[in-house]
């Protein structure tokens, strides 16, 4: 039942509804635009436009959406919709979207990728907005001041009022050093001052300016989000391209959990005629390792399934541990499938490289506190024990005096950065200690707390 489309649908719908509640006036043109967008992501427009029935409960997305990637994509398409409604109130755009994003995140705080994507979109909106604003400012002084010139200026002058963190957060990519626009973006209020003042200077051209600027912003933001969608959809390939640099002939690789990124990574190396052997830990209560092994074998890799308990025994013959991350924290710690910490410790003990594959949308700008508990999800005991046998013990509420039996079945595991050798993201390989910097490139400092 729970197909990808279904969730895309539900999500976009829900995002739309929540957006509709927060931003009241949605005019027909915006709706039309929505229809177009929905069509572009192959959703039925009829369904998504049936906004008049507001009683659908928000879908609890975490359990059903299989992978983070799919998640993010679905989220992005919906966030695209939200953003489109923002064109009406372009000045408030980040803030209204923030509210929507906060709701999305609150639906399942453990799905860190949701928050990441929301922040990314916020970042895009902020940046586009700002670049427009500064373009307007710059248009007053020197009509075609290029970005590069401004960059130089911005660097040279420096703004004492801006904190270094804001500067860093504003830098969108490593290729683009902190610029004047991004500096201004850090403080939207102050950024608007020159804009309004400038527009106020010649009031007759104000309305015309505004409409054109609005259109431009809309366009830019859509483009930015599309880029992001593209980036997330293509992160497997980007990461897999690097496989050949990391896997040599006759290597023995241990992996655990089921990650499409890992699958693509290994297969990419296989396609390049490297022959190697993969050990897959079965990943006990959910046996995702078996799924991964099945796909690996289907692609012709030599695969050996081992029990989770044999990880330590086998690690001495393993050349590299490769896992896919659920989320990468700002300190370089990794949240991965349960059992990862054990493998990481064993790898550390035997000096085996522990490599984490993660798309950039999994980089979470938060620093973890007690992530084993707070960023974890405990699943049903029925995966471990048959209810029938121990049900009287599991029954705490009745106070029957029977002994207490707890069944702990966590989903995720946290690996501290000290155990990670390398991150391979779509932008290349990075040290755990570099993660905070990478995160600063993707997110605005203002959005870290939602």
């Amino acid at each position: 039942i729970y197909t990808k489309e279904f969730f895309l649908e539900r999500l976009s719908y829900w995002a739309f509804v929540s957006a509709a509640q927060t931003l009241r006036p949605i005019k027909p043109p915006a709706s039309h635009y929505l229809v177009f967008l929905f069509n572009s992501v192959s959703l039925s427009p009829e369904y998504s436009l049936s906004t008049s029935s507001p009683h659908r409960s928000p879908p609890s997305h975490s359990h059903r959406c299989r992978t983070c990637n799919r998640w993010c994509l679905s989220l992005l398409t919906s966030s695209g919709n939200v953003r489109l409604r923002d064109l009406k109130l372009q000045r408030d755009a980040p803030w209204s979207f923030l509210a929507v994003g906060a709701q999305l995140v609150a639906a399942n705080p453990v799905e860190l990728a949701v928050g990441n994507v929301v922040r990314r979109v916020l970042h895009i909106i902020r940046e586009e907005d700002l670049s427009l604003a500064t373009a307007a400012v710059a248009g007053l002084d020197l009509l075609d001041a290029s970005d590069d010139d401004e960059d130089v200026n911005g660097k040279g002058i420096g703004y004492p009022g801006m904190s270094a963190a804001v500067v860093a957060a504003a830098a969108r990519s490593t290729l683009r050093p902190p610029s004047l626009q991004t500096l201004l973006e850090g403080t939207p209020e102050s950024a608007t001052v020159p804009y309004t003042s400038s527009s106020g200077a010649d009031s007759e051209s104000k309305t015309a300016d505004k409409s054109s600027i609005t259109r431009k912003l809309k366009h830019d933001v859509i483009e930015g989000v599309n880029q992001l969608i593209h980036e997330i959809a293509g992160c497997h390939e980007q990461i897999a391209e690097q496989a050949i640099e990391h896997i040599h002939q006759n290597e023995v690789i241990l992996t655990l959990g089921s990650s499409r990124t890992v699958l693509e990574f290994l297969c990419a190396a296989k396609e390049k005629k490297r022959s190697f052997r993969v050990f897959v830990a079965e990943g006990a209560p959910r046996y995702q390792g078996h799924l991964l092994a099945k796909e690996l074998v289907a692609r012709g890799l030599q695969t050996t399934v081992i029990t989770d308990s044999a990880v330590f025994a086998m690690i001495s013959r393993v050349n590299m541990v490769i896992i896919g991350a659920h989320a990468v924290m700002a300190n370089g710690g990794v949240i991965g499938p349960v059992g990862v910490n054990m493998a990481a410790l064993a790898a550390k003990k035997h000096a085996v490289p522990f490599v984490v594959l993660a798309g950039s949308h999994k980089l979470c700008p938060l620093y973890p506190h007690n992530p084993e508990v707070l960023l974890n999800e405990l699943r049903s005991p029925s995966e471990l024990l048959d209810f029938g046998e121990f049900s009287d013990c599991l029954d705490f509420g009745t106070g029957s005096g029977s002994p207490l039996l707890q069944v702990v079945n966590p989903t995720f595991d946290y690996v501290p950065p000290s155990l990670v050798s390398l991150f391979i993201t779509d932008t290349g390989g990075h040290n755990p200690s570099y993660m905070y910097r990478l995160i600063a490139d993707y997110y605005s400092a203002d959005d870290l707390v939602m």
Partner: protein
Amino acid sequence: MDPRRGPLAVPKVRRVGFFTSIEPSPETPRPNRSLSGPAEAITSSSPLSDSPSGQFISPVQIPPSRHHSDNLASRAAPVPVPGPSAFRRQLANDRALHVGSYNPVDSLLGTSPPSSNGEVSEDSGSLFGFQRSDSAKLSASFPNGGFDMTLRVRAPQESEAKVAIASTSDGRKKNVEASGEGESLAAKPRKEKETKSLKEKTSKAERRAIQEAQRAAKAAAKGEGSKRAGESSRPKPSKPAKQPQPKKEAPQVTSSVSEKRAVSVEKERRMDVPQTQMQYDDKSRVDKAKRRSVVEQTESKNKVELFLHLPQYERGNQLPNLSSNIFSLDTIHHAVYKVGLQHLAGDIAGDNARCIAMLHAFQEAINDYTTPPMKDLTMDLTAKINGYVSFLIECRPLSMSMGNAIRFLKNQIRKLPVDLSEPEAKASLCSEIGRFIDEKILLADKVIVQYAVTKIRDGEVLLTYGFSCVVEMILLYAHEIGRKFRVVIVDSRPNLEGQKLLRRLVTRGLDCTYTHINAVSYIMGEVTRVFLGASSIFSNGTLYSKVGTACVAMVANAFSVPVIVCCEAYKFHERVLLDSICSNELGDPDAIANVPLRNNKKHSKTMDNNKNLQFLNLMYDSTPAEYISMIVTDYGMIPPTSIPVIVREYRREDLLL
């Protein structure tokens, strides 16, 4: 611990000598000791043996053990009565013998020397090194049922040896040896194996040349030797054959004695380097083993490459085969057969349980045993036991503890007094086995519980992994005496033994938390102590236990939680192990392949015959000593570094049982 200190005292003295000196010297202090007793013997004997084989052989000189004389030297008669040190040496030899026979795969399944089963079992232990070197010769001299003769001869030989011991004067021995010095020089190298001669770097090239020459001479003299043996009422074709005949009696005697010594030293040295296990990637040995095997096994098609050295058989067909053969196999006692089937089917799991079941089966088998006419009880019974053991191995590889128990049993058999009648011997063996079970396993467990329970305080959270009966006893006892604590049971596929423990603990009213091994680092934060069971502990402190134990210990170590291992001392083993690959047992791969997935059927169907996919079901892993905080054994609570001490000192004591 204190009461045990007493017996320690003597060994300790000896140990000092053993340790302070370098490899060759360990035995050298001993001649000095014997010096104080029969002073005459030393002068002649020690230089004598020193000379031929160089420094390394010098220990040989030390008064030959009684056991030796039984086996080899008895026919040569004059052997000095072994002093206390000699007695120790005998123990050492016994131990060596155990080592030799411990892994019956080697001796029985027809790997190195054996021309016939009986022959092997006869001197599998004491002559192990010997036999190996001369395997070619032996088989050459044996083709015509020499084996039976040996057996027949053995009893008289032993009694004679005793007489000889009683009657021999040291003086005579000295004379003999002195006169035979030259001869022994020459004769000794003959017996030395290639391996040994390789070891003696100090020995000169010419000695080797002599060796070669004499080997040739010996081959020529074989026939003569057997003749001579016949006239000396010892028609032992094998051993006489090895001796150079054309010399006079006395020199011969000495030579054989010194040879024996050389062999014994060699053995003793080897004792510390326990027998290698059968490697299943050695085609020829496996083929040989297969020819003897009782259990039909087909090798699995999809082997895990890393574990080619371990047996990887198709599962599922042995059991029906075996149970259908149950009436046609008369070589295996039915009790043993039953235990074998139980091992195969997995009805008995857990090291202690398997060991006890096996010993009980042996008890039964011994009870039903009657010595065939013209055979010697000791040898025949040992051969029988070897047969049983190899059968059990085919059913399921032995655990280390079972190996130790078998060594004990064989030692008991070998040490049976010769004058014991058959029923008496059987009764004594059975009672010894019973005592072993009681003292080494059951009582030991009780002692361990007493010790370990002192480490449980109120409010603690104890983590245990899988199912260990000792740990279960500890937890239940601690609960019984009113300690308030919580238990975390970590379990793993495919056996899910933890559920058994969980069930037992919950029914007894303990608060439990149950989880799987992947979550161990999640749960470890709240744990205050980890209690683990063991399958064996090796002398480098490595804990060999159910797979996953190492993971738990490692995570506990990372969380700074003390790891307490509970292990009976009889499970200690003098082998060393570094990883879990070299020595392990592979379980049924299908147990892993079958997972409760929703789309499981499709899964297994598509996967079954794919060459690229293997399932690896490791049974054991080895935990490095650094993860172990403490080992609770029946000798007290010790650090893992003390394992070799226990193995060295108390194993001897065990042999005295």
